[in-house]
């Protein structure tokens, strides 16, 4: 009995903890995904706006490399929103021509530099890709926004696990106690009342037959 309760407790508590923490992780992931989606859409809008300007300038005869105005546009957009992170314009070979982060100019644009990035292509009048606008969110800024959320969700999950463990322990304890009450205790060797009652019925029936036999035997 005690071993069973212990086994149940030992198997069910990890299950409850795993389910609650997985649930917490899912909650966080869901909010994070929504946040990333919203922010990503915004980065996409900005990237497309800059790419459209660059594209028009391209068809007017301004080669991408000569579009100094892009530098100002990137800085302005970057300053308008600190969370935006880095805005860059790369040429067809992936070399960064302009960037809100001057250190990046001249380097090669690597595939997704940060956790969140939106790219808009800059195309020539005959369909070749002349370059792209890359808007990457700042990883630290994103984490900063979400870290508070992590703490809250994790805290709630811990509380739920502890309370859940207590509830399960209490439930198992109660079940154990109730069973103990209902069943016979082996020390006194008395049988459970329900079992005893059923045996008495058998006894009564057998008594009746015995009486009958005795009566006939006498007669």
């Amino acid at each position: 009995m005690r071993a069973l309760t212990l086994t149940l407790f030992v198997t069910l508590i990890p299950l409850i903890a795993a389910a609650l923490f997985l649930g917490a992780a899912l909650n966080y992931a869901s909010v994070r995904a929504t946040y990333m989606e919203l922010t990503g859409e915004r980065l996409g809008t900005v990237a497309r706006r800059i790419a459209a300007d660059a594209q028009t300038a391209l068809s007017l005869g301004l080669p991408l490399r000569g579009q100094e105005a892009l530098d100002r546009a990137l800085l302005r957009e970057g300053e308008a929103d600190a969370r935006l992170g880095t805005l860059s314009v790369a040429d067809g070979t992936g070399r960064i021509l302009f960037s809100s982060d001057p250190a990046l100019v001249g380097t090669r644009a690597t595939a997704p530099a940060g956790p969140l990035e939106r790219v808009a292509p800059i195309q020539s009048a005959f369909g070749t890709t002349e370059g792209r606008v890359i808007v990457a969110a700042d990883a630290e800024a994103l984490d900063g926004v979400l870290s508070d959320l992590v703490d809250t969700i994790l805290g709630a999950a811990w509380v739920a696990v502890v309370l859940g463990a207590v509830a399960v322990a209490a439930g198992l304890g109660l079940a154990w106690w109730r069973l103990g009450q209902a069943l016979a205790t082996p020390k006194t060797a008395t049988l459970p009342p329900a079992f005893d009652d059923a045996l008495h019925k058998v006894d009564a029936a057998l008594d009746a037959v015995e009486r009958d036999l005795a009566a006939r035997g006498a007669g």
Partner: protein
Amino acid sequence: MRLTRRATLAGLGAVALARPALAQTPFKIFQITYRGETDVERGFRAYFEQRDIPVTIIHRSAELDPANVPAILEEVRAEAPDLVYTWGTPVTLGTFGRADSVDPDKHITDRPGVFTMVSAPTRSGVVPSRASSTRNITGTSHVVPPEPQLRAMEAYRPFKKLGVLYTSTEPNARAIVEAVRAFQAPMGFELIERTFRLDGDGKPIIDGAADLVDEIADEGAGWLYYLPDTFLSSNIGSVAPQATARGLPGFSATERLQGDALISLVSRYFSLGQLTAYKAEQILVQGVAPASIPIETLQRFALIINMPLAKQLSLYPPLGMLSYADVLTAG
């Protein structure tokens, strides 16, 4: 008039390009133009610079006279370039000959060639089809097909009737009108055609042009279509003001008339130069045979809005169009 784009892109032409020094031997390209260097050549050069492909360009102009071409070809043979580039139909025919009558003694056949600014590559006999020249050349054309033109008009101001005033003796104009007629049923409009009067010698005269414009306006045309018609282009001053006076907006497919039409849909010469360079790159760098490179025109054209005229006509452009159009402002 001054051409502007959004404030961020002011300063057109102030382009400084650094040419990276590369160990590779530059490709030698011999350019023959009709009237000197244009934006097409600038786009052509910019394409190579942007990709760090070293090229040496020798440029000669036919000075508006195709008769000067044979002398230039002597120079070409002496220079032995990697590629010959020609501008316009007369220079192209003079350099490479008609597809059906190439003479190796007169024309360049041993060097690959690219041509540009040839308005009708098949009709003029430069190539048998746009799919392939079947010889050592390929090239580009600057003509905007009729369908995008009609769509541009429709997008700016929907119309049921389209007026066109052209010269009946110009084969090019007749061919375009023919092509536009075919779009009447599918696009649901009616074409109102008028041709310039002819004198006794069969030459077009400008007399009565204003009356023809009035007739078109009276019939309820929504647009007046200015074809790439040589006679019309040189006499636009007698046509456009009358159309404006009657509240009839003009549409043009050439950059020459962008100041007279309300909107123009044109191939940017710079982009065309880039497209030509793209084909040259395929020949020079990737070693593709010119015959297997199709003759193409641009996929995206420049839409030019004449804003002073829009104000005069009280026909402002749709807001969305401003995000892709170039705007002419008074200045």
